[in-house]
């Protein structure tokens, strides 16, 4: 039945199932196995396989920008190989926006005070830090650096080499001095903590 022209297929019940699979594949964030597709579509695996054949014919190199790919984990949509240059331009489009104020503050705290935990950052900035820290880790500007002392201590983060490169620093000791706040990390930290305490929980 797969060699029938597209037009005729659109009316059959298999076509309805194919539409369901299209929807599932476009929302999935990982390849889906036949079993997973069957469970979600609430249909049997044999029919899923037939509907997948339909889709494979439709979403194929040369005919569509969307290609159905069978990988080890199951089925997923990908971009057609012909469109690789455009996709490369899309994902590599330089995010030449600078860091957000939140990211800058968080990096500054980690750079000047040494490894800091998320609760640390939250206290010193007066704002929850989870999202910002996670974003900076993902961008490779912060990295985990052990845990705070004690059982179940919070994970601490330090700045990375990438951070130093981005800010044109040979090392953290090349950071501008903050003599007005203190001459070492501990006294700067003390100063920030005092202000944070007054800012009030």
């Amino acid at each position, binding site marked *: 039945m797969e060699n029938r022209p597209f037009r005729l297929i659109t009316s059959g019940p298999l076509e309805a199932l194919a539409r369901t699979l299209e*929807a599932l594949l*476009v*929302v*999935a*964030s*990982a*390849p889906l196995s036949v079993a997973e597709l069957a469970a979600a579509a609430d249909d049997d695996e044999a029919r899923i396989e037939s509907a997948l054949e339909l889709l494979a014919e439709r979403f194929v190199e040369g005919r569509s920008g969307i290609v159905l*790919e069978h*990988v080890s984990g199951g089925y*997923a*949509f*990908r*971009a057609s190989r012909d469109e*690789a240059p455009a*996709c*490369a331009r899309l*994902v*590599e489009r*330089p*995010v*030449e*926006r*600078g*860091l957000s*104020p939140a990211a*800058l*503050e968080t*990096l*500054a*705290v980690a*750079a*000047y005070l040494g490894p800091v935990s998320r609760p640390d950052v939250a206290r*010193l*900035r007066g704002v929850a830090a989870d999202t910002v820290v996670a974003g900076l880790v993902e*961008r490779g*500007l912060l990295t985990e650096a052990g845990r705070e002392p004690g059982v179940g201590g919070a994970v601490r983060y330090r700045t990375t080499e*990438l951070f130093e490169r*981005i*800010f*044109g*620093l040979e090392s953290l000791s*090349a*950071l*501008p001095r*903050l003599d*007005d*706040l203190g001459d070492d990390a501990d006294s*700067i930290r003390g*100063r*920030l903590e005092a*202000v*944070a305490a*007054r*800012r009030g929980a």
Partner: protein
Amino acid sequence: MRAPDLDLDLDTFEGPFDLLLTLVLREELALGEVDVAEIVLAYVERLAARERLDLEGCGEFLVLVASLLELKARDLFPDEEVDLSELSPEEAADELARRLEEYRRLKHGAAWLAERLEHESDRYFRLGPAPLAPRPERRLAPGRPEDLAAAVRALAEEPPQLSLAHMGLRFPPIERFLDRFRATLRRRKAFMLDAELEGLSRLEQAAAFLAVLELRKGNEVRIEQAAPFAPIRVSRLDIERSSEWRTARSA
């Protein structure tokens, strides 16, 4: 209906009103997070479902809610000095009207969003990259070390005193009216509440009314009203019992 039995279903709390009060007093529940208006709404809804109006219960409820509000105001704005002289009664009323309208708009906005969410609940889309998408390469703009120093300096700055002048809706202390009514009742056996309220702002009137309820709760006064909206007469009750109450309260 007694106020303590009121069942509440708030964002931050679910259970009877008296448990909420207990948790607040034990500081196990932050009052700042409690939507007092929702409590009042729940109570009013319950009242509306009843045939008889229980004045005693209402009075108790009003006093409890007034105390909650006062506690909450202190909780939210610990350093704020109450300065009523700053605000004329007209300004206070204007401000109240403005704020209520503002809040009404906000509620409309929230209701629209809720409806929208419901309507859009069958729109599914993928969050994050596609399974087989090319890995994005992020190129970061260079940063300036001085910006890092400036960020730390900014965090070391003393925060400004938070001005809450815009809060506007300060509640006049109930004690002021308690003292005033007690003084009046030492001179006279009874007074008409409406006469006492004349010339007061709406907020002051509310505080005065709460003070009368507080006196009633302490068995210091009797409240009489011939018919709904008729003048309210407040008369002295048993002096000895009221002084007992005051001693017990201050102990």
